[in-house]
């Protein structure tokens, strides 16, 4: 098991290296001149030239990539003399759009994304698994049909549509909640909750849909297993059979997918953050796209990649604990 984990982590690091290379190259090859974007429209050519040298855009692509990679571990100094500044390790580059180290920007925006993700994730697991279980236990009855309508709506309606609809009806029309304006939970917890409740719910309800389906089908499949029949034949109570036999089996794929979904969310819930104007990583990424702020894009992509690769490793390890049949000896 230990060797398995070591091997898995090693390959994860190789994968991240490859991701960093392709991400960096992809953005560097875009037909925009990063040096020209460092100052406004009326920029003088000599300022652009100076910035080009200062940010390292005069070097070859491979050299630039090497400096980026080195910066992650050793930090990076830009320019010389009075205009010099540095981004300490782990440096993901310097945003010329926001005149700030990318790592600092991510550190500012990530907590917002994390609060959004964690809250929504807890809600959607609760909603998804419970509605799925109710549907499975009442297969063919009205509860099942209601759950099926819920899943169809959830998987087919896009977040921005439902998000705007909810925002319009709750905030503008019914005026139950104020217009969202984010504040840190440590500064003003009440405002934080008032701001987060809608995005949490929208994200949770929409994501719960596929978990409802997964739980329902997984439970129904498990109920047809011989070992569940043997459980009944043993004289076990329905509750024990559901917990130890049916849910136990249905949870294996749910945990796997939930891990990956959660990691994907941590990389930035772009649409939800934009609709509810939450200053998270997703919103920052959108802004960076609009402004061609390449270092920010590379940085957020890398952070998202780290989450997804880490989640993959964790899910692989968790899988061995969940299903004894795939446990590596």
């Amino acid at each position, binding site marked *: 098991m230990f060797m398995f984990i070591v091997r898995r982590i090693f390959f994860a690091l190789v994968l991240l290296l490859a991701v960093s290379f392709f991400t960096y190259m992809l953005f560097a090859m875009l037909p925009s001149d990063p040096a020209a974007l460092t100052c406004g429209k009326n920029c003088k050519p000599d300022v652009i030239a100076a910035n080009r040298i200062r940010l390292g855009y005069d070097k070859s692509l491979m050299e630039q990539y090497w400096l980026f990679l080195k910066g992650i571990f050793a930090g990076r100094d830009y320019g010389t003399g009075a205009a010099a500044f540095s981004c300490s390790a782990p440096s993901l580059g310097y945003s010329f759009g926001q005149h700030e180290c990318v790592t600092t920007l991510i550190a500012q925006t990530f907590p917002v994304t994390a609060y959004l993700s964690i809250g929504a994730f807890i809600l959607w697991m609760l909603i998804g698994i419970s509605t799925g279980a109710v549907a499975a236990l009442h297969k063919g009855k009205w509860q099942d049909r209601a759950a099926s309508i819920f899943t169809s709506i959830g998987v087919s309606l896009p977040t921005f549509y439902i998000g705007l609809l909810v925002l319009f009806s709750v905030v503008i029309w019914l005026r139950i909640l104020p217009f969202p304006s984010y504040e840190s939970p440590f500064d003003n917890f009440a405002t934080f909750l008032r701001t987060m409740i809608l995005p949490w719910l929208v994200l949770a309800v929409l994501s719960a849909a596929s978990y409802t389906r997964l739980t329902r089908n997984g439970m129904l499949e498990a109920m047809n297993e*011989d*070992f569940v*029949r043997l*459980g*009944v*034949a*043993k*004289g*076990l109570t329905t509750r024990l059979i559901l917990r130890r036999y049916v849910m136990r089996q249905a949870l294996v794929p749910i945990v796997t997918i939930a891990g990956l979904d959660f990691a994907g969310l941590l990389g930035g819930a772009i649409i939800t953050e934009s609709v509810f104007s939450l200053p998270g990583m997703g919103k920052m990424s959108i802004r960076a796209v609009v402004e061609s702020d390449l270092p920010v894009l590379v940085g957020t992509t890398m952070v998202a990649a780290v989450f997804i690769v880490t989640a993959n490793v964790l899910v692989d390890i968790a899988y061995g604990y969940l299903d004894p049949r795939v446990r590596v000896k």
Partner: protein
Amino acid sequence: MIQESVLSVQNLSVVFHTPDGDVAAVSNVSFELRSGETLGIVGESGSGKSVTASSLMRLNNSSTATTSGSILISGVDVLTAEESVVRRIRGSEIAMIFQDPLSALNPYYTVGKQIAEAYLVHHPQSSKAEARSITLEMLKKVGIPNPEKRIDEYPHQFSGGMRQRIVIAIALINNPKVLIADEPTTALDVTVQAQILDLMKELQKEFNMAIILITHDLGVIAEAAQEVLVMYGGRIVEQSTVDALFSEPTHPYAWGLLGAVNSLELSGRGSLATIPGSPPSLISLPSGCSFNPRCAYSSEICTTDVPALRVVGSQGSVTACHLPNDEIISLGRKAAAR
């Protein structure tokens, strides 16, 4: 010695409601079971033998199946009793082993936990340590080598025969009066089959339990059972002792089954004797005797009237056939000798 009756089934009928129509899986099945006895139930796929077995523990889904008749065990009618009463009977008075021992075991828990769980549910006052020591003892009884180590292993770490031993251990942990074995050897290698049958016979003596052995294998019946029910199209067509079935079978379907076995054992070459045609669809059973389209002795009355069960011959066999008694006996002896 007259043994007490531990299970009494009267007029058991099971109808499944499917989108294609109602399926009469079991019709009017009655039998008695005495302790220490083994009753074999033989028949093709779809003859109703497995449905009969699962009805005995009320394992059929009540929303898709209607079960009527009565099943008495320890003074309780399994078909009408409260769910909590039936649950107390399941696994303690009557237990079951399944065809495929791999799919019958929960892959997520150790075998020790699964055996102990069956004990604890009927002995809620017992401690886990107690359950574990009883589990260990049971593992020894069913012939698992090195039980102290293997009690903490998972089902996939056992071979097919060993898994079936685990399933038997689960079934016998509460010392049930009746054990239902639904094709217990079908999924196993031939050499392992004999071991499992021997084990079941041995444990039957030790626990003095009755066994209902469901199989399509007449060899297994000859080896392990004393009484036999032959089922066809959801009905009992012959009910006799094993000796009578092999010396003087009384139903044309049983003649066909014996013919298929004998042609294999005797000639070694030539073609395998088969029963022409295929098992009937339970949705649209042939009118009259269900076997009539495949029967060489079929006549007018077979297509209109369902034959009643009646005693035929010197060995007390009961049969459901319209042929006259003397003809049944002479044809039956011929079939047995072939």
